[in-house]
């Protein structure tokens, strides 16, 4: 860990100015990812700007440009967000996704903004003694041809096969959440589906944010589908483990027929993967096992697997089917 200058910012403007103006500066939020990276040598900033006490701690219902939203401050802790009564009733998929992540201790520490921006847990990214294009552009991808059980099956490139580790972000992708960002040019709103990017030839860039952009909050639009939503995480251990795959789903039925369905997958790509082809295939149809499997297969037509990741396709089929049948009130067994 390089020697560090530590500054506690007193307001958002100051924070943005401090980091924007200094390429070696980084924001410090809950610290659960950044402090890990400091010790591992993955991040070597010269200055940390602590954004933990900027007052971005509220969860409030607001009128947004496209209707009513729940605004979540970037500094709201994962545990508090999961336990918030409105989240539990109106956005159960988010509550469930948060509760399936990390541990009780870590959820008290991790912030909403930080969770969105956490970086891959690919074992090669985590180990500075191995080549990794994400950590050190141009050095090569050790995961290709190496340990690949966690690797992406959708949207990967020859330069990077890493997956995004967040559960929360997968739920937010399904909810069409909007991220509120403050940068040097002022405030802007970025749909969460456009926040994260695919690796292409720049796997070092996880998101579309610029250096110095600060996530100040997230807006969750209230919808009928969001009320009928859930999250299924598949992992080796029953708890305290990253997803092999995960499914965030929200469903609104019109009688037996799907009026609105949102499906997002975790553990399959460099970003939370919104399964739009599957959604299209299901819309207007009744939810049954065959229909869901066909919809998943439509989405997976573009999947690319290795011996180590081939299991993710049947796992996604199974997990998605089970989740949607449950949401549709059909006993899947």
């Amino acid at each position, binding site marked *: *860990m*390089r*020697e560090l200058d530590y500054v506690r910012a007193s307001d958002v403007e100051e924070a943005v100015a401090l980091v924007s103006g200094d390429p070696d500066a980084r924001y410090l939020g809950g610290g659960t990812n950044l402090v890990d990276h400091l*010790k591992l*040598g993955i991040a070597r900033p010269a200055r940390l700007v602590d954004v933990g006490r900027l007052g971005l701690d509220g969860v409030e219902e607001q009128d947004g440009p496209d209707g009513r939203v729940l605004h979540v401050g970037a500094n709201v802790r994962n545990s508090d967000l999961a336990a918030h009564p409105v989240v539990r009733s109106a956005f159960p998929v988010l509550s469930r996704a948060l509760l399936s992540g990390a541990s009780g201790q870590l959820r008290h520490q991790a912030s909403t903004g930080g969770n969105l921006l956490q970086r891959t*847990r690919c*074992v*090669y990214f*985590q*180990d500075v*003694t*191995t080549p990794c294009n994400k950590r050190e552009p141009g050095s090569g991808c*050790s995961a290709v*041809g*190496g*340990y690949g*059980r966690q690797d992406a099956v959708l949207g990967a490139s020859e330069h990077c096969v890493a997956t995004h580790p967040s559960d929360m972000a997968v739920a937010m992708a399904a909810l069409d959440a909007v991220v509120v960002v403050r940068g040097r040019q002022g405030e802007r709103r970025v749909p969460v589906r456009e926040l994260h990017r695919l690796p292409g030839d720049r796997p070092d860039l996880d998101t579309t944010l610029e250096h110095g952009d600060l996530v100040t909050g997230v807006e969750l639009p209230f919808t009928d589908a969001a009320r009928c939503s859930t999250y*299924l995480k*598949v*992992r*080796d*251990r*029953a*708890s*305290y*483990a*990253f997803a*092999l795959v995960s499914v965030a789903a929200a469903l609104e039925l019109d009688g037996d027929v799907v009026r609105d369905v949102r499906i997002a997958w975790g553990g399959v790509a460099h970003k939370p993967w919104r399964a739009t082809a599957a959604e299209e295939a299901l819309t207007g149809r009744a939810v049954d096992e065959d229909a869901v499997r066909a919809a998943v297969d439509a989405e997976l037509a573009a999947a690319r697997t290795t011996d180590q990741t*081939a*299991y993710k396709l*049947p*796992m996604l089929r*199974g*997990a998605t*089917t*089970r989740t949607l049948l449950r949401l549709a009130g059909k006993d*899947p*067994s």
Partner: protein
Amino acid sequence: MSTRTSTTPVTPRSMGTRLDRVDGPEKVTGRATYAVESAAHDTGDPLHVWLVQSTVAKGEVERLDPAAALAHPGVVAVLDHTSAMRLADTDDGELAILQDPRVHFRGQVVALVLAETSEAAREGAALVEVSYREEPHEAELREDNATYRPETVNPAMDTDTEDGDVDAALAGAAVLVEQTYRTPHEHNNPMEPHATVARWAQDGTSGEVLDLVDSTQGVHGVAQTVGPVLGLEATQVRVRAPYVGGGFGSKGQPHAHVVAAALAAHAVRPRPVRLAVTRQQMFALTGYRTATISHVRLGADADGRLVGLEHRVQEQTSAVKEFAEQTASPSRMMYAAPARRTSHRLAVLDVAVPSWMRAPGEMPGMFAGEVAMDELALACGLDPVELRLRNEPDLDPETGKPFDVRRLPDCLRRGAERFGWADRPREPRSRRVGDWWVGTGVAAATYPAMKMPGNEARVTALGGGRYGVAIGCVDIGTGARTVLTQIAADALGVDPGAVDLEVADTRLPSASVAGGSSGTSSWGSTVVAAAQRFREEHGPDPAAGAEVTASAAKSPAETETANHSFGAVFCEARVNRWTGEVRVPRLLGVYSVGRVLNPVTARSQLVGGLVMGLSAALFEESWRDPRTGHVVTQDLASYHVAAHADVLDVDAEWLEESDEAFTPMGSRGIGEIGIVGTAAAVANATHHATGVRVRELPLTPDRFLS
């Protein structure tokens, strides 16, 4: 000199009853002080040592530039092979660090950074620039590796055995199971990472020269091993291990970091140093269970009676030091096959040094053997419990000696009764509850009863009816402090509260390692010998200061009978029909282990073994990248051990018995048997649940998806 004393059986009074851990309050408050913490509480102002590890699997350090590290504030020194103290004995390739530029495996220690703070030490290590002349390496265990036949396998067993005409027996068998079973690299991962605090005396001419506080399973073993490496007599090295946060074999022998701490401390003597191995570094430097490949052939007659058995093992060792896991050893004595063949072959790889991990040999070997028995039961159309009962030997097949106690059938029957085995459907994949396929499985367990040489204990009358009992053994969490207090109390005929037990210091009488499930048998017998001798010499009302040091004579059982513990493990497994996830709602072990000396600590030992076996069954795998020789799953997020949510109804019980032929306490040892057979029981249960036979650990969800 102590006297070798024959013992007589001890009348149990405290033994066999509950006594809460004598160190409990220290542990639940965190006041218990583990190795590296002694530095925080001493006033010695220690320097922090950080290890620099090789990033190639084989070759030589070409250039090591410490300039950037030395320029970092707080860094005091950098040691490498050009500057570290010369070792007196470099025969042990694992311990002979910083003596030459050779690199034998990825992660080997190539330099040490000493600094005033841990932050500076860590950054200093990152700033040491090392370049290598790299050589081609081989780091992957495959079936086509070139192999050799080691002289013996751990600890000193025959490499190969052959009895009867195995090929003819198998050729003539009515039923034949022929399969290959694999277990992966596994890392012990005790919760307390290895750590050493070291200090050299300024004047090293006589007496104790080097002081170590080490996280070890045996203080005397550390002194005896590390002393000569450093050119010291064992008596010149003092080692203490007041509290040890688990070991599971990985702290059974000193690893390179102990030498590293001594070398670092020598460079700055008499200033102490503290070296805490990081979790990641443990994956290269503190031992692991080698991956194994077991080729098993079981031949039976139409009634399921074994006629022939073959267990051929291929595994790996490291180029720098041999370790040969005795994987086929349980197949030599487990069942009554008239013709039996076992063998071990090693591939020499450019990898870190494998070592002991809880039940070396038995754990991987019984996974192979007990899954094969499950396959044989199906092939014979027999219940797997019945198959095992039909293959009970009268005498130990390996030695021809009678068993001291062999109650495997009792364990199987009792377990079957308590588990509700009789209700089990015969056909696999016959029960589904909601999202889950449900099945049950069984496996047998065994572990040899062992006593180690080299133990002495001292009993001192303290006056007022109190007694001091001293033996240099280590309590790594087993409950040894508590149980030895009970043994001493009963052997002296006093209450446990009248015993002041001292352990974990080389200044105390010599003790063997806490390993091989031998601790309580070895140390307990020794304490009994000293106590009985003490009473003989000093009577019931000794003068304060009266003292006896003694060691125990061998018991007749040690030479006349085959001494093993046995058990039966029953498992219910559920496999998710959508996702392949495996959960284990019930796991029960029933054991024959001699007298249980403390039901509370014993249950924790046995349940702990079952949990570690469950963990190995479902999760554990250290993935070594063959391209680099590097274990890339080198932390607790990528190397999964069982978390609390994975451990549902896990319980152990034991048969009432007493083995006074083996020890005067009647006990046989319990530390390891809980892990043996457990992974096989889980694998057999998942097969029963799904019809999918998995012959390779761990049983991750992908194996149940197609």
